[in-house]
């Protein structure tokens, strides 16, 4: 039977931001690793966006060698502590696992995390494969230190390039730092894995906004970088566009999570950044970000209602996170769409006027389109509201650099090798794909690093 790691009890975890899911004990890890059939064709590895040798690392865990297991993972993935926690394994490696035929796939995610945590990943010496070094004395600039940027920088450093990673915020990590809460992804883990990337020789420059502090032209010109990888992410929050959305008390998910995760507003007034969480909070949306916001508000003492315009079946959020949220007492209001944010006499948010929905014919996304039920309007009281209905690519760099060709919703247009409309400038992750997952951004970072390596070798060959 598939083993799941223990979780902190919901009664205590709603009072703090400590990690919810515990790590496997060595005994549990051995038991779960022993369930792996060691399939020769490794369907799990094919299901992994970065093709980790999953049977290989599980075998090492089974042999009681977690450090070697971690080294095996790091051949393909520089951020295992992060992926073990936030990858949607049920859609990827575990979905492909042969044992999933009985609905009991090997718990690959928990085993990956076990390897990462038990080997204290950052303290391991970086494994630079000397024979892979190109010997090209060239440098590459990477813009954005989220999963795509960190991965690309790590891969390029391993191949022998000098890499500088530029980040606009004061801390590296992108969405790993500002977006995903401490109780799902402790910031210590992010810091350790960033330290590992630094250990590979990557220079990280925070407080630098590409296009403003430094232009692409300068990076490729006087700063002497031979290529640039843009991984600036999907940082532009979408709003509902309804009345009252700018009332104090209405947050975008990005602002709410930034205040709480990046600025640690839950430590106010010891730390300086505040966040307002009223007795009742309403979160709008059905994805992982919406659940993160709801669970943060719960931990800050609020009663939380999550409204989603479709049903539970259509929610893009991970099942596991929905279960966690239910246990923590989040109230789910399905088939509900906000119409207007309401203000009290002082101009502060007091509630949200909503309408009931029903599902109609499938839309472009293949999901049944929600339709309003006339006359079903009702009010949910709330002093805080968080709008978590998606993000668009960050438009700043494209605006500052008109040579960069953009597509729908401001994504950067690239060729198959991830090169943008400017020679030597590559891009990947959410800025190209639109908002997606951590692991798909990492896959794009890896692909970008390989493409940049090939491009620079070709240039050298021609010269």
């Amino acid at each position, binding site marked *: 039977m598939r083993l799941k790691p223990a979780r902190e009890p919901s009664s205590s975890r709603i009072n703090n931001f400590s990690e919810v899911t515990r790590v496997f004990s060595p005994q549990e890890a051995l038991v779960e690793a022993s369930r792996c059939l060691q399939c020769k064709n490794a369907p799990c590895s094919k299901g992994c966006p970065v093709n980790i040798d999953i049977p290989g690392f599980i075998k090492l865990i089974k042999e009681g060698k977690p450090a070697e297991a971690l080294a095996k993972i790091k051949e393909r993935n520089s951020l295992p502590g992060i992926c073990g926690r936030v990858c949607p394994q049920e859609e990827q490696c575990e979905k492909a696992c042969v044992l999933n035929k009985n609905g009991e796939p090997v718990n690959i995610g928990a085993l990956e995390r076990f390897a990462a945590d038990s080997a204290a990943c950052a303290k391991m010496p970086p494994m630079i494969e000397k024979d892979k070094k190109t010997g090209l004395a060239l440098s590459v600039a990477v813009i954005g230190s989220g999963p795509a940027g960190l991965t690309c920088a790590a891969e390029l450093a391993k191949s022998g390039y000098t890499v500088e990673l530029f980040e606009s915020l004061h801390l590296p990590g992108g969405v790993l730092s500002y977006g995903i809460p401490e109780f799902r992804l402790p910031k210590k883990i992010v810091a350790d894995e960033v330290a590992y990337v630094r250990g590979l020789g990557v220079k990280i420059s925070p407080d630098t906004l590409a296009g403003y502090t430094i232009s692409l032209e300068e990076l490729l010109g006087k700063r002497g970088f031979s290529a640039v990888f843009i991984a600036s992410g999907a940082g532009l929050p979408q709003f509902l566009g309804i009345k009252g959305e*700018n009332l104090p008390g209405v947050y975008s998910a990005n602002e709410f999570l930034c205040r709480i995760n990046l600025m640690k507003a839950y430590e106010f007034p010891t730390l300086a950044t505040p966040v307002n969480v009223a007795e009742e909070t309403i979160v709008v949306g059905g994805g992982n970000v919406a659940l993160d916001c709801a669970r943060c508000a719960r931990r800050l003492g609020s009663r939380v209602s999550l409204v989603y315009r479709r049903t539970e079946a259509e929610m893009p959020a991970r099942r596991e996170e929905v279960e966690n949220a239910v246990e923590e007492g989040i109230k789910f209001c399905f088939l509900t769409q906000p119409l207007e944010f309401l203000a009290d006499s002082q101009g502060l948010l007091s509630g949200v006027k909503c309408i009931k929905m029903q599902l109609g014919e499938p839309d472009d996304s293949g999901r049944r389109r929600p339709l309003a039920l006339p006359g079903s309007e009702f009010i949910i009281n709330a002093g805080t509201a968080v709008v978590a209905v998606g993000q668009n690519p960050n438009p700043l760099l494209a605006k500052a650099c008109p040579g960069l060709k953009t597509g729908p919703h401001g994504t950067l247009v690239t060729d198959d090798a991830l090169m943008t409309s400017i020679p030597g400038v590559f891009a990947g992750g959410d800025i190209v794909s639109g908002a997606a997952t951590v692991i798909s951004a990492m896959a794009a970072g890896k692909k970008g690093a390989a493409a940049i390596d090939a491009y620079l070798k070709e240039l050298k060959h021609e010269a």
Partner: protein
Amino acid sequence: MLIISKTYYSPEVVRMEVEAPEVAAKAAAGQFVILIPKEGGERIPLTIADWNKDRGTITLIFQKVGFSTNTLSFLEPGDNIAHLLGPLGKPTHINGYSEVICVGGGVGIAELYPVARAFYKAGSRVTSILGARSRGLLILEDAMREVSKELIIVTDDGSYGSKGLVTDPLKGILSSVENSTHNVYPELVYAIGPVAMMQAVAGLSLGYGIKTIVSLNPIMVDGTGMCGACRCTVHGKTAFACVEGPEFDASGVDFEELKTRLKTYRRKEIRINDKAGQL
């Protein structure tokens, strides 16, 4: 970011020169930085009051109004500001105006100076109206005089210049324009200061049909268009002041909404204000 020098215009208003060569190299009138005074502090926006590309420094002028500005004021030359990001926001659109009226209130005069100077250098005739609560709180009078053809000063208490509000002399100028006793027609009024002042100025100048630009000061977090804390309603649409502003056509600005949003954390600010220096 190393603090090179610190001086006081008054016990409340501080001037700091800060080493920030990349910001100084790019800075233009109207732009701002986001800084964290000390680790664990808030990210706050401050206008770039001046910059020196050769020295690689920028000048920040701020009033000690709350926790973060007080915390910043406790730093000394030789200390480092923990984090500083910039230059942010759109630069002021300077060219094409022959006659401009620049209006600044309080510490807003520090933000007005680089804008007035840019208009002056571009050949505009600049009339400046500066307002302060009292004589001791008036800043940058000499610097503003250098870039203005005419400089008018008002104080709330009448301790310097004439007693009154910036709208008083502005009304005088605009009505004389209307009565054709003023020889040049102002094409632009540029106002920066407290929201109520900008709102009053805009109410007046727009009434005379003169294009009016205001520089808004909403709460910000990242300053790069990511969080939306700074959203303002302009011409009925939501705009992010950090990337689409901070300057907007005053005729479309919902000032009442901005005032309400600025009060979002007032109760929490009171709780933390006296703790500055404890970070």
